[in-house]
């Protein structure tokens, strides 16, 4: 246990983080002098995450990068940790805390990009229904706000967003119920990575694939398949692989005393990308390589 320990703490178990984990693995190969850990909390609550960080510090971690489930309200916990070891945020930021830097994308910008896909796909406007896991989570609210901003004045309206608490069965039946109860909906937005696949399956079962425009987030295989097939208008992807990879290097350098990687505003933005029919194949290839490698 004499190697310095670097920990990457995520907000909940999901496939999304598998990519970050791949990035961390890659970094581990390049940083043999460090012990890199990738940790999931037992449940996606800020309380458990903060307890997990306390335990990590107690167990000897030397630097932590965290994707907080609730950064706004974890500032004290962050400051407590940051008082003991260097702390970085990823995925969602807490600028008011004493964290060293943020590394990740901007959810608001991602929402705007999704809105732009919608505007391009429905020049005549439309009525959209959104689906998300936790309505109250920061990333959900930012994405929704970004989407709303982008479609303003375009005749497209986001009528409502339905939450499912990450229960896949409810995620699916929420889509089923909307199809049954709201025949006027002609566009759907899946804000969390598993929402688009559920939309896809529900539309497939109802025989409405293609009839309803779908805007997706993230890179679930079903989502990418649907984009390639043309059933989805497009998807906005983040780059968690880089978060893990760059994040570990950043922390290692920081511990070595090299602070050149930290910009003045403390924000290291990894841009989000729009994936549509045109670039989906290339994107998927890159993805496979990363996970495989």
């Amino acid at each position, binding site marked *: 246990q004499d190697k310095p320990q670097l920990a990457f703490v995520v907000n909940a178990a*999901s496939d999304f983080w598998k990519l970050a984990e791949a990035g961390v693995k890659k970094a581990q190969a390049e940083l043999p002098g460090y012990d890199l850990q990738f940790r999931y909390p037992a449940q996606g609550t800020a309380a458990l995450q903060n307890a997990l960080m306390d335990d990590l510090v107690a167990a000897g971690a030397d630097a932590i990068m965290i994707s907080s489930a609730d950064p706004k309200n974890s500032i004290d916990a962050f400051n407590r940790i940051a008082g003991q070891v260097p702390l970085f945020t990823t995925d969602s930021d807490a600028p008011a805390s004493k964290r060293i830097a943020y590394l990740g994308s901007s959810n608001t910008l991602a929402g705007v990009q999704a809105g732009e896909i919608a505007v391009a796909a429905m020049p005549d406007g439309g009525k959209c229904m959104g689906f998300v896991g936790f309505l109250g989570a920061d990333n959900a609210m930012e994405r929704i706000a970004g989407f709303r901003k982008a479609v303003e004045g375009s005749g497209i309206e986001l009528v409502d967003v339905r939450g499912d608490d990450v229960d896949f069965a409810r995620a699916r*039946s929420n889509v089923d*119920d909307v*199809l049954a109860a709201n025949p006027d909906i002609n566009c759907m937005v899946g804000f969390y990575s*598993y929402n688009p696949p559920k939309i896809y399956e529900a539309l497939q079962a109802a025989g409405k694939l293609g009839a309803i425009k779908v805007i997706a987030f993230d890179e679930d295989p079903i989502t990418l398949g649907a984009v390639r097939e043309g059933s989805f208008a497009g998807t906005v992807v983040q780059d968690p692989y880089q978060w893990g990879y760059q994040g570990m290097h950043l922390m290692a350098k920081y511990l070595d005393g090299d602070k050149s990687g930290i910009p003045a505003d403390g924000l290291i933005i990894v841009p989000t990308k729009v994936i549509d029919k045109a670039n989906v194949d290339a994107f998927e290839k890159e993805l496979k390589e990363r996970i495989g490698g």
Partner: protein
Amino acid sequence: MHKKDFGLAVLIIVVGAAVYLQNPLFLSPINLGNTANLIGLFGLFAIGQGFVIMTGGIDLSVGSMVALLGVLFVDMVGKFGVPWPVAILAILAIGTLLGLAHGLLITRLRMQPFVVTLCGLLIYRGLARGYTGEATAGFPFGASYPALEWLTIGRSFGVPHSFFAMILVGIVCWFVLHRSVFGRHLQAVGKNEDAARYSGIRTGLVITAAYVICAALTAVAAVYFAMFTRSVQPSSHGNFYELYAIAAAVLGGFSLRGGEGSIIGVILGAVLLQELQNLVNLLGIPSSLNFAVMGAVILAGVLADQQFNLYRAKRRAAAALDIQDTKIAPSSRQKSEIGGYI
């Protein structure tokens, strides 16, 4: 049909009528089909839970079991290319073994059902998450298993096959619980285990069988759920389902003290729970109020049912007074029944 079941059925119809008046799409074939599908899925393992509750036990592990078996099934079929009938048999076998383990720990090693199945809840969920390394198990894009899909998510005449499966299981279980010798022994064991043993009933066997039935039906439900969601996220798939199952059974007239309950009741309980879920989406109630509506309707319904029964019992007693008929005993049974908390 039991009197209790009748009250529940009335509640279901009243709620349904109220929703229909607000949004006639409630009775549209699509919506009925979707709801029937969910009823089928949840009904399957709620029936299983009924058997366990009948013995005075509880099975908290069903939600986790749905996740673990779901992950295994999807991986077997989607990743390892196991033919699906073989995979289903394997899942059933694993489920049965888990149920057997519960039963034996409870009857042989005399552990409390709550403790055993709480450990099951923790262990199975942990195994599911550990096995996949927190990744979602899913079928590859475009993968298609026509026969399996027909069986699980297919529909005939607009009725989902999961619903048919539940009805079929329900009928068999009705005979098992209400008409077979085993069912009678189950009721006796649930009421008074010692006395049942004195009567020569092999109580250990009967109780173990209840856990096996519960786990086996949960395994069936796990396959249906996995096919419905098409992918299984081990950390959240099936969360709280044990609560749904127990709630369906309790609403359906099962007593957690054991010895009481009917199959029709638990199915109606599952129907009510899904109707309430559906109602929220259909009436456009903010999903945040979902739970509140559900809770309020259940509370009001159970309360109304109970008060109505009390009133009827009183009326009956008064009637007995009128017609000068001492034979209609004003069932002082009422007294002990309603005194029976949990």
